[in-house]
């Protein structure tokens, strides 16, 4: 056996083909997959932004609807990515057994899970872009200044994708993800500066908001969308990078035990 026949596809192909698999399966039922997460921020924007906006007027120096829209740029990215890498990953792992098939092809556990995170990031990017387009069409946000905000959506997707994978490595059954969504992600939505600034939180809980993962993409997206770049966003970027890499490594270590007998 000559050693030249022992060639396997390069890293980008291995990770990329995992990503491609998800894209194909997802786009097979595009309407039912993409419509609900698309409508969610829209309803929120109309219901809360327009309704409540009449009473609030301005927040943090901008009209309330603008404040809210700049926060919503990343929340759908968070929810879809977390959903994809919790319920989605769990079903692929335990029910459909698709990973058993995929790991028979020349990819490693690490390739597979990095592919998952990249796919979640891609969904984050797309949904962030959708919110931006809607907000721009309604004249709420200026697309010229906010054009880079979907990159924050990508980073948000990656971070919460990795977060979902870690959750997947912990749960014993699929219903336990309800704790993640109802017990953590949904409450966090209200305490991360999406609907009101964290500076309005009681002083004792304010440091807590600084630890919550959603605070950082929200502040970052808003800084870009409203063109208010401040030094603190360096901390936000660093937080997101470190947490994403850390959670991804943790997920790989923990899920390897489930994927390799």
């Amino acid at each position: 056996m000559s050693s030249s026949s022992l060639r396997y596809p390069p890293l980008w192909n291995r990770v990329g083909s995992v990503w491609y698999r998800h894209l194909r399966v997802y786009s097979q039922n595009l309407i039912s997959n993409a419509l609900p997460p698309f409508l969610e921020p829209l309803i929120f924007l109309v219901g809360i932004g327009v309704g409540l906006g009449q009473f609030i007027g301005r927040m943090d120096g901008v009209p309330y609807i603008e404040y809210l829209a700049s926060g919503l740029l990343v929340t759908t990215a968070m929810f879809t990515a977390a959903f994809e890498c919790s319920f989605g990953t769990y079903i692929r792992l335990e029910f459909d057994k698709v990973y058993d098939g995929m790991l028979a092809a020349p990819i490693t556990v690490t390739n597979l899970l990095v592919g998952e995170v990249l796919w979640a990031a891609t969904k984050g990017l797309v949904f962030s872009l959708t919110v931006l387009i809607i907000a721009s069409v309604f004249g709420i946000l200026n697309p010229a200044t906010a054009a880079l905000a979907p990159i924050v959506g990508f980073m948000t997707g990656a971070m919460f994708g990795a977060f979902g994978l870690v959750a997947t490595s912990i749960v014993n059954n699929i219903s336990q993800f309800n704790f993640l969504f109802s017990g953590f992600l949904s409450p966090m939505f209200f305490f991360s500066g999406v609907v009101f600034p964290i500076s309005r939180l009681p002083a004792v809980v304010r440091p807590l908001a600084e630890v919550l993962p959603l605070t950082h993409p929200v502040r970052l997206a808003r800084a870009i969308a409203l063109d208010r770049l401040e030094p603190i966003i360096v901390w936000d970027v660093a937080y997101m990078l470190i947490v994403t890499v850390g959670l991804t490594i943790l997920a790989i270590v923990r899920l390897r035990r489930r994927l390799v007998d």
Partner: protein
Amino acid sequence: MCFKLAVACPSILPEANHRREKIGVSSSGVHVYLYGMQNPVISVEHLFKSYRKVRAVLDLNFEVFPRTCVAFLGPNGAGKTTTMKMLYGKAAPDGNPKTKITVFGTDPRRDELSIKAIAGVAPQEENLDLELNVVQNLRIFANFYRMRGRAATARIEELLRFMELSEKRTARVRELSGGMKRRLIIARALLNRPRLLILDEPTTGLDPQVRRLIWEKLHNLMKTEGVTILLTTHYMEEAYQLADNIVIMDKGRKVIEGEPRRLLSDNIEKYVLELLDPSLQARVEHNGNLNGCRKDGDAQRVLYYSEDLQSLERLSAEIKQRDYIIRESNLEDLFLQTTGRRLNELQ
């Protein structure tokens, strides 16, 4: 690769596990063999695997030589699947310093990618994308092997023809029968033109026609393309039909191994009388006289073995035709003899 020439009378050639190819017969009638030195595709020594308290594989040793088919035969829970998984990195063996595993000269613990790039694996459980159609499923996997565009399409069409799935090209996997899904999984394992096929229970639960079709396809692959095949089964007929070498496993251990026909001729009498009603024993064994036959069996049935058909016929002389069967012994009998249990018995 190194070769060793042996010039010898066939009868004194070392048999062992080594494959040999006859390359000629000299004028003096001496057979000339090229033997033994073709490197095995798979070589496993002292393989152990435990899942907490369960000892799934215990000190397993085996080799698989190029262009041959080796079948792992054994009841559920014997450790067949676990063994297959350890060959391509899907399961991690216990850390035993004596353990050696090489597949195409590569240790899967060190480099699973090189192995998976030239092997095709069809795992035991179905793991297709149910929402996608047949071609889409294959296309996704073609991408894993970096096959795209026309080359991928051509290979996919070729495999659909080979596995007789062309008509189902655009059918959703959800709509396929069990046999079609299994054929699709095998087709998927063939995308990269593998030199080694690892098939975990490729025909379990399929009807006899489909099973035969799959056997024929596997046989073709081996004979025309020189693919090496490692498969697991709990159908003795499958092992007997396809395999050059059978490894019978039970409770994590290799019980016995060999070329199917020799395995039987070396280890068990040629014929067997099977009593379907154990209460007839007394009438068969006139006063404990077994007529030189050997007795075996369990609560449900009694078996008498003999090299000599007439002895069995004499034993059965006094019972009704429908209460017994006389037949050639098979691997099932061998398994029963070595383990005291039946192949399809649930553990």
